[in-house]
């Protein structure tokens, strides 16, 4: 029921006076053998029928979210003098990658209620149902998840990183790291005024392994025995070949 209301609310949102016309530097990312991350340029214009409203300044939020997957966060404690994993918290869905770029500071671009409604900020993007029944202080675990992911560059919050020209043209660059997982990366653009979302636009970026990477990965999942035997054969051939080549090199 709530979902239905939400849907209606979305539809009822003024078929807004301001809408996004979007461009992406690329709408697919191919993970090939020499893949070393990718930078996506997101640019667009704001289409409007009426003159620019003069009340609150227009702000833009861009988010890119990797596929959601269940993760487990574990905490180490000292047991018998050594540090071992003790408590663990399972999170039902956390994005494998999540980047936010905004045109102003966080407080300027969005208010709490709209953040909750549109699940924009990083903590909102992580779905942790039933966390309280698993551990005493789930917030510590969730904070740790965000801290670890931000440190390794898979969660990114860049304030003032969207360049907005005359409330009409915007552009930003989001760097995607090398350790991407495959999937559809949901890309959302929100226009806000005074912390309220006035328009949203969604598209997706297709991240796929290609060529050899794709073939090896598929084989390892679909026919693991064949893959295992092939790995052994290739490794033996490579090992033998390399030592034979080296022997030839030394004798010749």
């Amino acid at each position, binding site marked *: 029921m709530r979902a239905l209301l939400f849907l209606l609310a979305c539809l009822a949102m003024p078929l807004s006076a301001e809408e996004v016309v979007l461009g992406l530097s690329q709408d697919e990312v191919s*993970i*090939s*053998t*020499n*893949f*070393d*991350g990718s930078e996506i340029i997101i640019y667009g214009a704001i289409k409007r029928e009426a003159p620019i409203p003069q009340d609150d300044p227009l702000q833009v939020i861009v988010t890119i979210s990797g596929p959601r*997957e*269940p*993760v*487990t*966060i*574990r*905490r*180490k*404690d*000292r047991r018998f*003098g*050594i*540090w*071992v*994993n003790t408590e663990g918290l*399972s999170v039902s869905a956390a994005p494998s990658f999540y980047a936010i770029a905004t045109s102003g500071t966080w407080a300027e671009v969005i208010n709490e209620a709209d953040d909750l409604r549109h699940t924009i900020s990083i903590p909102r993007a992580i779905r942790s149902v039933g966390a309280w029944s698993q551990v005493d202080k789930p917030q510590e*675990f969730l904070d*740790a*998840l965000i*801290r*670890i*992911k931000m440190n390794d560059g898979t969660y990114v919050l860049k304030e003032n990183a969207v360049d907005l020209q005359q409330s009409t043209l915007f552009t930003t660059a989001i760097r995607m790291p*090398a*350790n*991407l*997982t495959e999937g559809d990366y949901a890309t959302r653009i929100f226009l806000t005024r005074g912390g309220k979302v006035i328009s949203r636009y969604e598209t997706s970026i297709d991240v796929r*392994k290609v060529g*050899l*990477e*794709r073939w*090896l*990965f598929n084989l*390892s*999942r679909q026919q*693991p*025995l064949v*893959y*295992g*035997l*092939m*790995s*052994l054969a*290739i*490794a033996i051939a*490579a*090992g*033998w070949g*390399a*030592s*034979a080549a*080296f*022997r030839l090199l*030394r004798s010749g």
Partner: protein
Amino acid sequence: MQVYLPIAEVSVNAFLLLGLGGMVGVLSGMFGVGGGFLMTPLLFFIGIPPAVAVATEANQIVASSFSGVLAHLRRKTVDLKMGTVLLIGGLIGAALGVGVFNYLKSLGQVDLLVRLCYVLFLGVIGSLMFIESLNAIRKTKSGKPPARKKHNWVHGLPFKMRFRTSGLYISVIPPVLVGVLVGILAAIMGVGGGFIMVPAMIYLLGMPTKVVVGTSLFQIIFVTGFTTLLHATTNYTVDIVLAVLLLVGGVVGAQIGTVIGAKLKAEQLRILLALMVLAVCGKLALDLLIQPAELFSVGAEGH
């Protein structure tokens, strides 16, 4: 040059992997050990997920031992019968080991298990080797040949079998047990287990030194091959791209290492190896004892 590893799903520098393979190869050529016990922890340090490191290392060991076995077969320094008995134990052990590995992975304790195994075995073997080689140096200085016990409790067990190549008539129970232990280690630690098997064959089974290395390599190939298949089919963690890169570096490094090793004295080599084993052990032990900077860790569901 970055290479994206399809199974590990991380991007690493290809030359770093070739270099690591080469470095460990040099050491393994110098000391005549497989080097798995060094490579697996090094792979942890450069950010390869432990499960992938262990499985891939098993695959690499098969390949790097293969040319060694061929050479030993040509020289007829492989006791095939003893190798087969060890192998039967090894296959049982590998199956047990992968079972334990997967169970602990579901509990989130696999990292601890792998590290504890390393600390324990490297510590014990390193210390024994260090004391042994110190004694050997002292004895060669005083001119007494090292004595070997001919009969111990091993010779009192039932199910005796004759091993012609080794010139032994002993019970099959001890070799099978040695095999099981090595199989478990291969599955859990991503090592060939030569560093356990070789001393066990010499001191426990009393096999002649000349057939020990060939026979252990023979057993290692099949056990690690079996382990690779088990990991590939149950965990999908064998990364062939990673294995090939390590391998190419490793084979070249091993050839260089053999040349260096031939120029050093056996006792000196053993002391060096013992010190290295103890150093790796110490580093891993410190990680367990000192409070980590980040108490939390994130893993995929059930990993």
